[in-house]
């Protein structure tokens, strides 16, 4: 048995306290919003007087929540399309950047990642002005294009990371065995970087789903997006359905995360 000194104990307490505080700040709001979503009351009040599924029933009612449903499908569609297009572009970009060791490649890398540090609000405004100057009317496709710029770097970054971890010897071995570049890509590179691509797509999808700044500028009444809709409801009616939406989103993210972990975990185990 090792004797703990005074500094060991204070360290333990300090770290424990910080960790507890962190968990409280991260999990607390989530717990409160979920608890509130099960309320019977008319208002967003915590703690709820009694528990029921009333607001979830309301939320899933096709007539009374039609606007929310449209916004939700818009958000999912935009996130899906932006992620799909972003995946193709980012993987190609990462492949090119990883192959070249010249300084120009580092410059390109920084360029591709720059949307991550760009203030998204300014980008939203800039995109709106740019598209109106070009004479392009707001539409879902425009939203997809707008989101694409903001979320593609997530996929680019994780793909590039898994490419740099790829042993170049594997591709040389493949070459010496008579395989073409395309064959090597299909059977060696792609399977080994797939977990990285999947992780990036997950991050990209989530970040598109709850993107406010770009949607704020590029969406219209016709192309309402879920986060914007929620904000609108919050401002006007303090509708408890907002809490129910939050509950559904949290649950969906949780499920998606478990699926992702299962998939990439599996691929990780397969690729050693």
């Amino acid at each position, binding site marked *: 048995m090792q004797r703990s000194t005074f500094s060991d104990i204070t360290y333990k307490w300090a770290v424990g306290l910080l960790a507890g505080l962190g968990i409280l700040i991260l999990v607390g709001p989530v717990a409160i919003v979920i608890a509130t979503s099960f309320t019977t009351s008319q208002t967003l009040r915590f703690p709820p007087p009694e528990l029921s599924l009333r607001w979830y029933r309301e939320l899933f009612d096709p007539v009374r929540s039609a606007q929310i449903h449209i916004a939700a499908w818009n958000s999912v569609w935009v996130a899906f399309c932006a992620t799909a297009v972003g995946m193709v572009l980012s993987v190609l970009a990462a492949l090119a950047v990883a192959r070249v060791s010249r300084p120009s490649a580092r410059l390109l890398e920084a360029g591709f990642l720059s949307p991550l540090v760009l203030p998204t609000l300014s980008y939203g405004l800039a995109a709106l002005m740019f598209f109106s100057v070009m004479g392009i009317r707001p539409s879902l496709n425009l939203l997809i294009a707008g989101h694409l710029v903001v979320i593609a770097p997530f996929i680019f970054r994780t793909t590039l990371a898994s490419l740099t971890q790829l*042993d170049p010897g594997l591709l040389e*071995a493949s*070459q*010496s065995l008579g395989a073409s570049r395309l064959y090597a890509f299909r059977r060696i590179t792609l399977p080994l970087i797939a977990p990285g691509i999947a992780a990036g797509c997950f991050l990209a999808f989530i970040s598109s789903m709850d993107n406010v700044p770009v949607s704020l500028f590029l969406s219209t009444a016709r192309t309402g997006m879920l986060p914007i809709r929620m904000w609108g409801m919050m401002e006007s009616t303090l509708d408890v359905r907002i809490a129910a939406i939050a509950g559904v989103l949290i649950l969906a993210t949780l499920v998606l995360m478990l699926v992702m972990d299962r998939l990439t975990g599996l691929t990780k185990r*397969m690729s050693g």
Partner: protein
Amino acid sequence: MGSGSRPVMLQRPDMPPAVAQPLTLDGVTHSYGGGLAVDNVTLEVKGGELVALLGPSGCGKTTLLRIVAGFIEQSNGKVIIGERPIDTLPPSRREIGIVFQNYALFPHMTVAQNIAYGLAARGESRKVQAERVAEMLAIVQLEAMADRKPRQLSGGQQQRVALARALAIRPRILLLDEPFAALDKNLRLDMQIEIKRLQRQFALTAIMVTHDQDEAMAIADRIAVMSQGRIEQVGTPTQVYDEPASLFVNGFLGTSNLLDGTVETAGPEGYGVALNAGTRWTVASSRKFAPGEPVTVSVRPEQMVLADEAGEGRFPVSVALSLPIGGELIHDVAGPAGTSLKIAAPRRPGVSSRSAEQAFCGLADHARPSLFARS
């Protein structure tokens, strides 16, 4: 995959290539960052021969191997297999099997898939693939491991898979890059025998890169000792060990004692050399020396003896330390003029050191010292 000219032997999986092809390096030079990584190397590897490129790290041996494989394009010179220069062929068309230093097994594929990879890439049918995989697994004795992933195998097993994968495409040439560096010492001899066996069985012309003289001595038919991008000497293992062409080769292969002296006479028996240690030896050499020329005599530790009495060709030494190493007793002795020598003698059971500190040191009867010019 755009490879129209596959050799016929691929269609006949059970027939190794009948005639091993020679590999010729003709004046191969590669400059890299202003310096010469490989400097005008000419080397002919006969069909079915295993040549080891031996040298310290940075001597250019790995660069040379990668030039043969096609991963590096040389600045000058030709690589020829059989009669045909292959310099314009990409690595995927060279029909060269490579065993990489870290094996480079595909981690996400099973052993069987790894071995079948080259055949699958060539578009061979599943039946041909399965037959060849079974054959290769039997040859490297890993039948039970067919469905395992590489990381579930030991180092020796991984290397056997790497060998099987390289040989499954029936290559014309086999390249081995530091093949034993990652293996336990006990496993090395087994794998050396295994590689030698397969190389003979498949009648392969092979080049092995290594910095380990024991490995090179163990399995190479000939050794090319490299230093600073050049080949210093090519010869059989015993040739380069017994008759090193330069002091570098002499020092790189095995241990040796260097004694300074001066040539006094030249005769049919050899040169009479007066050693600074205070005696006179007759040393044969294929190189020419003039009387009066300062020279260095090199003698292997096992070719020197310690005696209790003075005698012809002996000089007095004091034994500083004796180490019993297995069946040998290694004496570290100090001679006159500050020379330090190592002498290896067979050890009698129960003896762990030499009794007397003062002794006389001379050449053994079978000794073949080497003579080098001293500048």
